[in-house]
């Protein structure tokens, strides 16, 4: 079983099938195409998007609907196609994992990027950071205290 020595989360054992492929990388990290989604029991519902190739690169994420319960996904057809989501099966929200990357800057409260959520299709293990042009969501949505258990990922 492959093992990843991460900077922040220690030694992660994973199976090749756990890897999520981001064929386009993420904006500013275009060369990073393989990630693991990892969680710790004490941090739920936070999850971590950990780069497989760069042990020091990770993103702290929250399910978009844990940040805004009525969050609406308006991903472009290209992004939905990129993760291999088939139209007709159901609403994308019900099948895709939709995560907001959380940032904390010096002297400011944490914010979540709702403008550009990370979409992961568990069925295909492919992901994309979807820019939701015209969605009206902010790339720096102030994080409010959330519910302890949070929402499921998808």
């Amino acid at each position, binding site marked *: 079983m492959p093992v990843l020595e991460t900077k922040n989360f220690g030694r992660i054992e994973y199976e090749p099938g756990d890897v999520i492929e981001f064929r386009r990388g993420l904006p500013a990290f275009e060369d990073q195409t393989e990630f693991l989604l990892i969680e710790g029991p004490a941090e739920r519902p*936070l999850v971590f998007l950990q780069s497989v190739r760069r042990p020091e690169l*990770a993103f702290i994420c929250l399910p978009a609907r844990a940040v805004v319960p009525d969050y609406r996904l308006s991903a472009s057809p290209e992004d939905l196609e990129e993760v291999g989501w088939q139209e007709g099966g159901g609403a994308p929200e019900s099948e895709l994992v939709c995560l907001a990357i959380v940032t904390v800057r010096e002297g400011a409260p944490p914010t979540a990027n709702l403008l550009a959520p990370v979409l992961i299709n568990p069925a295909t293990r492919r992901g994309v950071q979807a820019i939701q042009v015209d969605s009206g969501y902010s*790339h720096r949505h102030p994080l409010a205290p959330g519910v302890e258990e949070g929402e499921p990922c998808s």
Partner: protein
Amino acid sequence: MLVIRRRAGEAVLIGDGIEVRVLESSGGRVTLGITAPKEVPILREEIRLAAEENTAAARAATPAGLQRILERWRGGEESPGSFSKIFRPLR
């Protein structure tokens, strides 16, 4: 900032090979046609915002950053010892 008013069908020229033409304008939206040399990257602003946020987020993904996010999320003080010892891949 230079401000220029244009109607649908009109264009502005930038430098030696860049043309930005207003193709359509309706309901507060404009459709632009951009002609530029191959080597000039053209991005929606949102991509740059995402890149900036990702860069900041990668920097914030540390135990200290995680602690501040958890404190905010849970609305109280988080003791550093309460972090998980074992993390596992989500399937």
